[in-house]
């Protein structure tokens, strides 16, 4: 992206002055280097989002922003119903509520090193991963609707996990306002065999160890110590979310003009929050969030079973569960007033600061954990939301590294088998049904997550708490 088009506010904050149809400015939180590496299309997408009806304050881009669908990935935008604000399917994305959850294990590095192959094998055997894999759970229509209403609560009630898990999930594990009746039969059919599956692409389960602690006080509140073994699961709402995304995107694109919305790009498809279509989408999208929360809860249960087979003494408790692709009704202070906003986070993580009422009691002083996924060979980070972040970007931060190289280019550069053995030499065991999948997800095809995380911290969006490196990766 051409820096000359931006106004520098600080080393970590850059502004696109309102011009043309823009109703608000664009704000990018990133370093000069990260912005220089961003595609020009990110600029255009921020400008387009800033022109949508009812947008409040600014269209934001996080340090990991890249070219998305209508909205940039790493984009945050809030809309106010009272101003004719909109909800956008593209602003949420196809993989509704794709997210990360991290589990404590109470295991040590020595323990895992001693049984690393066996643990990798049992996880790979018990966690359905990859294209065409099916879960053991097959839901009837009535059960499907109960799952879409209940999210992780439903899963716990079915015996997948423990009630105390729910405290450490956004929305306490159940997104209110879900309307299963607004989810099509096609979407439900697509989900029928996919509960408790990891998926493919950049989704993974990783056994990690903590290699650095940056903020000992917050780390203590999060129960993170140097050398700890943690397990992170990255996946989303599976086929159901993808189908909701595809169906509503089209409905919003076709009806936008009837709502008086001129779309500069069809992918920005949206509907007024107060319209029938807007409300139907919100009901369906919230059901998609519940599907993702239930799915990660079931995967947690499967992970507990797998780890327990090798380490009966392990205690897998939930550190936290974050979602990346959502639109949520939230209350934020704007110009001294508390206002009801619909905050879209597309490839961005909610990052509430200390004292926020929606955080569980044990995280009140530390702020919300922000779980940043890496790629197979690189690090992941745990950050903490800050008080400043609430004013900077409606309490949001980055979500990951983002690709620097397309999938095709990656397969031209690397072979899956070679990547797997190179990582094995570094002590990282990868299990996947697909070598081509491993090549496409080669660590070298991703940007440097450390630079992204550092920029997020310097911009004030979140504080670095700990860095984790992988020991085992299960890839779809």
């Amino acid at each position, binding site marked *: 992206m051409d820096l000359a088009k931006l106004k520098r506010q600080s080393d970590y904050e850059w502004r696109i002055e309102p011009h043309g149809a823009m109703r608000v400015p664009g704000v990018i939180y990133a370093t000069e280097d990260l912005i220089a590496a961003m595609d020009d299309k990110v600029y255009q997408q921020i400008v387009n989002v800033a022109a949508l009806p009812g947008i409040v304050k600014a269209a934001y881009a996080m340090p990991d922003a890249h*070219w998305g669908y209508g909205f940039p990935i790493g984009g945050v935008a809030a809309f106010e119903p009272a101003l004719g604000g909109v909800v956008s399917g593209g602003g949420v994305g196809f993989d509704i509520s794709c997210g990360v959850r991290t589990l404590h294990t109470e295991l040590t590095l020595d323990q895992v090193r001693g049984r690393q192959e066996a643990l990798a094998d049992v996880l790979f055997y018990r966690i359905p991963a990859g294209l065409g894999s099916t879960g053991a759970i097959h839901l009837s229509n009535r059960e499907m609707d109960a799952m879409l209403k209940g999210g992780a609560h439903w899963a716990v009630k079915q015996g997948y996990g423990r009630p105390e898990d729910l405290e450490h999930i956004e929305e306490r594990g159940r997104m209110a306002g879900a309307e299963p009746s607004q989810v099509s039969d096609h979407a439900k059919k697509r989900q029928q065999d996919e509960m408790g599956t990891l998926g493919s692409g950049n989704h993974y389960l990783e056994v990690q160890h903590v290699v650095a602690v940056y903020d000992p006080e917050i780390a203590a509140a999060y129960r993170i110590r140097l050398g700890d073994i943690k397990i992170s699961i990255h996946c989303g709402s599976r086929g159901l979310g993808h189908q909701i995304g595809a169906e509503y995107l089209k409905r919003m694109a076709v009806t936008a003009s009837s709502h008086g919305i001129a779309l500069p790009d069809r992918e920005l498809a949206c509907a007024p929050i107060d319209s029938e279509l807007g409300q139907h989408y919100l009901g369906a999208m919230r059901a998609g969030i519940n599907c993702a929360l239930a799915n990660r809860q079931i995967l947690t249960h499967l992970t507990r079973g797998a780890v327990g087979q090798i380490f009966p003494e392990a205690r897998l408790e939930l550190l936290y569960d974050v979602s990346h692709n959502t639109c949520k009704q939230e209350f934020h202070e704007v110009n001294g007033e508390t206002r009801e906003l619909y905050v879209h986070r597309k490839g961005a993580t909610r990052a509430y600061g200390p004292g926020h009422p929606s955080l569980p009691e044990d995280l009140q002083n530390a702020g919300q954990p922000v779980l940043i996924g890496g790629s197979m060979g690189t690090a992941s980070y745990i950050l903490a939301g800050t008080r400043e972040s609430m004013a900077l970007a409606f309490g949001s931060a980055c979500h990951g590294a983002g690709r620097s190289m397309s999938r095709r280019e990656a397969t031209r550069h690397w072979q899956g088998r070679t990547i797997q053995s190179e990582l094995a030499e570094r002590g990282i065991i990868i299990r996947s049904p697909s070598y081509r999948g491993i090549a*496409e997800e080669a660590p070298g095809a991703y940007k440097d997550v450390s630079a992204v995380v550092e920029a997020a911290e310097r911009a004030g969006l979140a504080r670095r708490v700990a860095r984790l490196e992988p020991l085992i990766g299960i890839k779809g």
Partner: protein
Amino acid sequence: MNTPQARWEHFEHQADIGVRGIGCSMAEAFVQAALALTAIITEPETVTPLQAVDIVCEEPDQELLLVDWLNALIYEIATRKMLFGRFEVQLDGPRLQARVWGEPIQTGKHQLTVEIKGATFTALKVGQDDSGVWVAQCVVDV
């Protein structure tokens, strides 16, 4: 039978991948776009056309019809756990009628890469170039 113009290709997108079908007619371009879709998941030549599935879409906008067609295929792949390697497409105004052939996914036989979430409106284009050749393309989310 394919005409000499018929071919497919992928085009670059940072996070995802673009499919482009090229042919002497819109229907042929749609067939080639479908092959490009399969080629994201696996090598299309490795898919044996054992079972036929019928697909019907209706949409007056040509570009949205392409999205509907690809999304219908994605739905069949996801729910039938099948891959498709042979396609016949007939277009009649806004109506697309297709018969597609394939087989159940076999991890041993098919080198699988990634599942496809949906067809997007990004880089979405259906039309003829100056020489009259049809192109049907969009980015798909993987």
